[in-house]
């Protein structure tokens, strides 16, 4: 045990930053797992370049991982780091601007060579020229100490030894914040089990980092962040993409229909394809298609055959899938389309987050082609959102778009693992017999005869005797489904399809207004949930009442949304786009909502949003 003093903190934000090749995402992941195991609440924000290996030591090559953990509930990954770990000059330069003065900076001095400094435009070393005076800097020769600690590993090259420096850093930070390292040791064993020397080297580096903290005088104290009070339960840490994949599999299990995924790789959606590809044991079929159009087509073909058909992508892929989604609207078959939004237009910012596909998924198809749209709010909420998407698709026989984004996809938080018994039951009835009698009293099957309540048409899958029928993208006659160019029929069918989507049952939006006297409402959707909740907390703590609500269902909107909007003197709508939800709200409810927007590829900070809320408050006072 450590002989140094231990201080107690209520919350900490740590950012690990280094070159893309330095293993910062892994280091962050491991620290997160250790923190989760300790029972802190947490939220993470990975931030990495689109290039797999941008030139070493350059600013574009910097990769970082931020983690916020606390003894209370955590809503965001944190605005500003209390501790920055900078593995090279580029990482320091790219991140120091976010680090408040007085915070701690741990730097790997070995990388501060003239050449590396030059690569990022430092004329003198910031470690020596006094420019870091206002920060609490710990210079650590991370690389050389690691290599030295591994001196006995004669089978490893210097390069291989250097590569273990992230484990040294992890060991040091684990010591500093009294995190248990057993999970990481287990992890290393399963990862490097087949290569004993590499395994030993990593374990040695991890322990060396820990011991370094304990023995050097530079680090005077360790810190303790007590577990957060969380409702009883079994917890695990999940990213949004993992939760989403688990939600899809759970929905398929509950519905008793196999899951078929058609997908083409694209950041930041690929991890869902990866996750589902390893869940074959749960009857999951994944087909890596030749392109996004085929991915949607494969999912639709499988849905026609009675499966839960899913296609996952990001904005550029949605553009390609549009025509197939329109076909699903016309065929009235269930199809789940997952859009993990990223910065656009075009290739845009592949690894950064944005909410700018909302109008694309609402309206980006030819003709009147309405479909339900659902937005996930937090990484763990991606699980529930996926279940909801499958419920709506299969109940109403419609394509459904589920919106997530890069921030939710890669960010993580503790998730209270639900009991399978508590998951919603999904009733999927496949048609098995004729549903009408014709003029001669003969039983017949009419593929477009609707359920009077849901307006859903029967799901009659091939292989069902007596229900042979033809469907297609040409307008169909009401009830019979035959080709029809009749004007009145077309008008009727367009309105029926709209009515079906309008009639999807969605829960009322809940308003969080603890004092009950707020005059302004902050309304958000999707991944702004955490930042908005954190910002309203800040404003309330300053004694100002403010109400908050978040819409999960964007199409159809909750029935009470109009009333809620009209209840407040002002409605503020923060979005990571130029005001897309605001536009929908204004056109539907004629309420003069105020947009607060930012399109920086990053989630809102609490400070920024709290500022916007305060400004709005002043306007109504």
């Amino acid at each position: 045990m450590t002989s140094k003093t231990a201080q107690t903190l209520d919350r900490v934000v740590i950012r690990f930053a280094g070159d893309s090749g330095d293993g910062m995402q892994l280091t962050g992941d491991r620290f997160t797992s250790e923190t989760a195991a300790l029972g802190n609440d947490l939220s993470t924000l990975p931030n990495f370049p689109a290039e797999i290996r941008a030139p070493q030591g350059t600013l574009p090559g910097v990769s970082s991982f931020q983690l916020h953990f606390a003894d209370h509930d955590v809503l965001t990954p944190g605005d500003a780091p209390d501790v920055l770990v900078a593995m090279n000059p580029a990482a320091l330069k790219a991140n120091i601007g976010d680090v408040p003065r007085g915070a701690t900076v741990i730097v790997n001095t070995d990388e501060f060579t003239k050449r590396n400094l030059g690569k990022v435009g430092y004329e003198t070393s910031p470690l020596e020229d006094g420019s870091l005076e206002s920060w609490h800097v710990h210079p650590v020769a991370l690389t050389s100490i690691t290599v030295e600690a591994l001196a006995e590993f004669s089978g490893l090259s210097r390069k291989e030894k250097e590569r273990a420096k992230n484990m040294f850093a992890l060991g040091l930070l684990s010591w500093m914040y009294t995190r248990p390292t057993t999970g990481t040791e287990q992890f290393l064993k399963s990862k490097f089990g087949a290569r004993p020397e590499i395994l030993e080297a990593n374990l040695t580096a991890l322990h060396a980092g820990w011991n370094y903290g304990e023995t050097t005088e530079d680090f005077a104290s360790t810190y303790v962040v007590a577990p957060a009070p969380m409702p009883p339960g079994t917890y695990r840490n999940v990213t949004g993409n993992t939760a989403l994949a688990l939600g899809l599999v759970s929905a398929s299990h509950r519905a008793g229909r196999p899951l078929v995924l058609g997908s083409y790789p694209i950041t930041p959606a690929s991890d869902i394809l990866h996750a589902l590809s390893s869940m074959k044991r749960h009857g999951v079929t994944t087909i890596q298609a030749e392109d996004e159009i085929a991915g949607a087509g494969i999912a639709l073909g499988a849905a026609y055959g009675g499966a839960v058909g899913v296609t996952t992508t990001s904005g550029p892929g949605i553009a390609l899938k549009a025509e197939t989604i329109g076909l699903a609207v016309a065929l009235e078959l269930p199809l789940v389309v997952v859009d993990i939004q990223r910065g656009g237009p075009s290739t845009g910012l592949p690894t950064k987050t944005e909410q700018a596909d909302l109008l694309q998924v609402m309206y980006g198809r030819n003709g009147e082609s309405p479909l339900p749209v659902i937005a996930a709010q937090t990484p763990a909420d991606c699980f529930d959102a996926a279940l909801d998407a499958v419920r709506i698709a299969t109940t109403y026989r419609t394509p459904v778009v589920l919106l997530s984004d890069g921030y939710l996809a890669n960010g993580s938080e503790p998730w209270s693992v639900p009991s399978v018994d508590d998951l919603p039951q999904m009733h999927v009835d496949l048609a098995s017999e004729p549903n009408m009698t014709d003029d001669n009293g003969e039983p017949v099957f009419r593929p477009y005869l609707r359920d009077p309540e849901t307006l859903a048409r029967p799901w009659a899958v091939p292989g069902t005797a007596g229900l042979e029928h033809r469907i297609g993208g040409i307008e169909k006659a009401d009830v019979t489904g035959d080709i029809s160019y009749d004007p009145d029929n077309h008008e009727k069918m367009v309105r029926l399809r709209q009515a079906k989507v309008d009639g999807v049952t969605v829960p009322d939006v809940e308003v969080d207004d603890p004092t009950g006297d707020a005059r302004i409402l902050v309304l958000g959707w999707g991944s702004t949930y955490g930042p908005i909740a954190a910002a309203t907390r800040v404003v309330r703590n300053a004694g100002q009442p403010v109400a908050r609500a978040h819409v999960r269902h964007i199409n159809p909107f909750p029935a009470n949304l109009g009333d809620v909007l009209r209840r407040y003197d002002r409605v503020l709508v923060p979005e990571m786009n130029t005001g897309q939800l605001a536009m929908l709200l204004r056109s539907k409810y004629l309420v003069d909502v105020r947009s607060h927007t930012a399109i920086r590829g990053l989630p809102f900070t609490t400070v920024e949003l709290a500022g916007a809320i305060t400004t709005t408050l002043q306007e109504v006072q």
Partner: protein
Amino acid sequence: MTTTTDLGMPTTGTPDGLAHVPHLPQDEPKQTKRDFTSDQEVRWCPGCGDYVILAAVQSFLPDLGLRRENIVFVSGIGCSSRFPYYLDTYGMHSIHGRAPAIATGLATSRPDLSVWVVTGDGDALSIGGNHLIHALRRNVNMTILLFNNQIYGLTKGQYSPTSRPGTVTKSSPLGSVDAPFNPVSLALGAEATFVGRAMESDRDELKSVLRAAAEHRGAALVEIYQNCPIFNDGAFEALKDRTQQAARIVRLHSGEAVTVGTEEDRRVLVRTTGGGSEFVPEAEVGARDVVVHDAHADDPSAAFALSRLDTPEMSHVPMGIFRQVERPTYDDQVRAQVDAAVDTAGGPATDDDLQALLRGKDTWTVG
């Protein structure tokens, strides 16, 4: 570095494309053409070759002895793609070029279905070229009927990817300058395991190629020459004309010499010293190296060479089955991987199995 793993042997144990599709019981009366005729009014132009193909398919399907409800026709967009409406099976008229993708999802998730794709030269080779080549290379169990009329019919007569150079249409008033695809060559290049060609007007040949295609396990492509009397009339007239037919059509029979012509005037395909081939009169063959067609050869090169006999002038056009080989199908292998994972884990996932998945490996407990 990526690793590869031994996929093991194909697990269906059958080269029969219809092995898993329910058949009618022996004692039930054989279906008739009428059983496969839907109540929809057929709306092609009078004289359209599509009628002939429809009649051939409707009268041929009973021969397969399958349950009607287990047959699905998926089409794209084009005159030809209206086909499914007229067949009393399951059917989907989808969107332009995408039928092979939709059929891939259906065939992979439903081994009990006989899946057919109906497509045109524009649908399959222009907008849908990507899906076509990938369905062929993956070898998904489906039968693709490519109606080649060398024109875009439905959009009223623009040149297509199979139109002969110089084709004059509304969009090519001075003649098209596009180099055309040869669909058979393309399919062979795309690793197809079954490639055939037939004339719409030659019902017996068409039926026999269709039958072999339907029974093939894997993706089968059948190019069908189809006349569009409205926008490209007579495109295949030289092959239909009884006086020229024999001299132009090369009927392929696996295991036999490749020949063209009539009894009296037969020419035989022989190899030339330069690695090519030429037709020579039977009497002059002598000791020359005669080309014997082998549709089952692993190497597609010889089949490809045969596909190249065909020129835009249609001086020698091979008909029949170019290639018919066994290769594990995509859908069988995908299902085998899922089935193996399920079996190894002791059967379909129970609630407990799902619970274990949700918990994952790294959990902690509060309270």
